[in-house]
């Protein structure tokens, strides 16, 4: 109790409050620009933390992290380009809402669900850090393998009208993820002697290319490309609409916290799992992917709940949960703080001061988010013949910014044409991307499990966690197949009722 009071005393300074607000602001700006990542923002901000006290320094980087995670939804909703990989799922419903002239609504629900999830995540961090961290430590290669297998079954939820086409798309994503050096032996695969592919196909150029570039291409192939005038941001979110999303937000927050506490899984998987659960539990799953507010809420709550939870293994065990938290370690090291269990014993008051700041970050996110939304929502009003060339420049600069690579721009354009081709043949992009994200971890854990088991396959079922995720996988696949058959039957009934119709 004394440590909590000391922590509050330590936190209570204008410098700490300013640090979290400034960090959040930087994070929102960085997150809203495709190509600029939170890890880049934190890396750039680290030198500025030298002169700060440790609490302010850490709160500044936490603010950038959380702001970036939330703001990635802005570009996902408005220009179909996720600011961070964790926001891929947000665009599935956010972009259609924007196209319907309801971008303000989509931005509002993204903000509110992000704030609620962030708060839930912060509470989990403060109350259950040690417990959750010890649970996460029980994950070995076999447990990770099953978790990844279960996560891959999400493709059945985002496969669209044809389950098999979705699976073909996922397989293509898994295959593309094998490009580069093999993770176990270091053998090159599908690199064809090109050094640029040694590390695999860069994810962010692929992401930007798959989603943003097809929109640009498609725009110039349409006759009504023309000038759109008048406000398209639409009305704000109403209270009944928000209330309808509350169960989804809480469920997705819980999923995000659980996933975030497991190192290496990340916001993208959490976001897709949350979205998949929301769709499956909905009475109207057919509305998902066509501008369903609940879909935006699920995706945003899922990925933002990860932000606080990834700090659990970081603070409690010293294990970074993702790239951003790995960069955040720098802020601790600069100030001579050794993270892990000893941090709680030797610097308890400092830990609680950080916790108070993190709680404040949710309020800062709400206020700054509301202010920035008004500004960002106006992007929808920009005539598309000006927006599209501008988007192209953002895509090129943003892609180049990742690792100053000219080759990455080529990858982005290639991914853009691939995305356009997929759009034209109705091959869904989300399964491709989910598989590409989860593929390396899936393969790595599968092969590591096979290697350490020396041919004893019972290792895949040697813990209750394995059984739990194996059962979830079977249930998820079964449900996916059933719901696909159901939606196919209703599609067939529609076609039979309107043969040869045209619009």
């Amino acid at each position, binding site marked *: 109790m004394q440590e909590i009071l000391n922590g509050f005393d330590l936190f209570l300074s204008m410098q700490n409050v300013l640090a979290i607000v400034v960090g959040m602001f930087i994070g929102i700006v960085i997150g809203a620009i495709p190509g600029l990542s939170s890890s880049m923002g934190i890396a750039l901000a680290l030198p500025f933390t030298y002169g700060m006290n440790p609490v302010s320094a850490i709160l500044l980087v936490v603010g950038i992290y959380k702001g970036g995670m939330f703001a990635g939804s802005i570009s996902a909703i408005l220009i179909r380009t996720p600011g961070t990989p964790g926001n891929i799922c947000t665009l599935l419903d956010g972009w259609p809402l924007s196209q319907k002239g309801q971008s303000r609504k989509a931005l509002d629900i993204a903000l509110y669900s992000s704030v609620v999830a962030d708060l839930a995540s912060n509470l989990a961090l403060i109350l259950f850090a040690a417990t959750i961290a010890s649970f996460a430590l029980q994950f070995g290669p076999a447990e990770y393998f099953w978790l990844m297998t279960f996560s891959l079954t999400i493709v059945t939820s985002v496969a669209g009208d044809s389950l098999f086409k979705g699976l073909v798309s996922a397989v293509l994503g898994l295959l593309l993820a094998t490009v580069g050096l093999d993770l176990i032996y270091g053998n090159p695969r*599908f690199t064809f002697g090109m050094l640029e592919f040694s590390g695999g196909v860069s994810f962010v150029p692929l992401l930007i290319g798959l989603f943003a570039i097809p929109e640009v291409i498609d725009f*110039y192939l349409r006759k009504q490309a023309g000038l759109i005038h008048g406000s398209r941001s639409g009305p704000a979110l109403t209270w009944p609409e928000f209330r309808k999303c509350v169960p989804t937000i809480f469920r997705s927050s819980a999923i995000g916290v659980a996933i975030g506490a497991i190192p290496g899984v990340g916001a993208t998987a959490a976001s897709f799992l949350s979205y998949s659960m929301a769709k499956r539990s909905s009475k109207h799953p057919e509305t998902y992917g066509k501008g369903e507010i609940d879909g935006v809420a699920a995706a945003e709550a899922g990925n933002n709940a990860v932000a606080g939870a990834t700090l659990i293994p970081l603070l409690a065990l010293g294990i970074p949960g993702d790239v951003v938290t790995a960069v955040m370690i720098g802020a601790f090291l600069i100030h001579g703080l050794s993270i892990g269990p000893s941090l709680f014993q030797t610097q308890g008051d400092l830990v609680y001061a950080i916790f108070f700041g993190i709680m404040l970050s949710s309020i800062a996110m709400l206020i700054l988010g509301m202010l920035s939304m008004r500004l960002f929502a106006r992007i929808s009003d920009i005539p*598309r013949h000006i927006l599209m060339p501008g988007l192209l420049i953002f895509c090129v600069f943003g892609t180049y910014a990742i690792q100053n690579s000219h080759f990455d721009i080529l990858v982005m354009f290639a991914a853009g044409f691939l995305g356009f081709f997929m759009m034209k043949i109705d091959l869904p992009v989300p399964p491709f991307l989910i598989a590409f994200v989860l593929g390396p971890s899936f393969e790595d854990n599968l092969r590591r499990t096979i290697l350490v088991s020396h041919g004893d396959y019972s290792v895949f079922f040697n813990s209750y966690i394995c059984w739990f995720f194996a059962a979830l996988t079977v249930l998820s696949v079964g449900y996916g197949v059933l719901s696909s058959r159901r939606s196919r039957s209703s599609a067939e009934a529609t076609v039979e009722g309107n043969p*040869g119709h045209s619009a």
Partner: protein
Amino acid sequence: MVVMDAASQKRRQTIIALGFSVFFLAMLAFGIPHGIPSYAKQGLSLTSSAFYPYVVTVAGLVFSVLTVIEARAGSAAPTSDGESAEGFSVPATLARFSMVVIVFAAFYLLLIPLGALLSSALAFGFLMIFGGERRPLVLAATIIGVPVITYILFAKLAAVPLPRGDLPF
């Protein structure tokens, strides 16, 4: 948007699915043996580098065959025709598509020699005109304004070392 009748759509979906089957077969026959040099030494043992891509490709082949069967057996949900969009004839659509490809290629190729600012201004200007904008003032303001603001945002505020070309800034 034009929506195809059920028979044409079935044919189109079948051709696409067959295309995927051919792709996965080609991967098994040529892609994996030639794309993974260690395949010659390690073969397809459980822990070899080629085993996982091989299994994934076989799965892809199975799914693509199932897609063919699905396309032949039932009628899928109505989809876009994949041809000329919103009234353009097919040759006009192809011409416009080629133009977009040329602009992208030019932007990519000119980025290093001309620098980010000049090449983006050129690409932006061309696409604005291509998109239908003819007002000189709007063109001038946006061709200068948008690339400059984006450049400042990335190069100056986010400290990204964008290519400069021969420009001194």
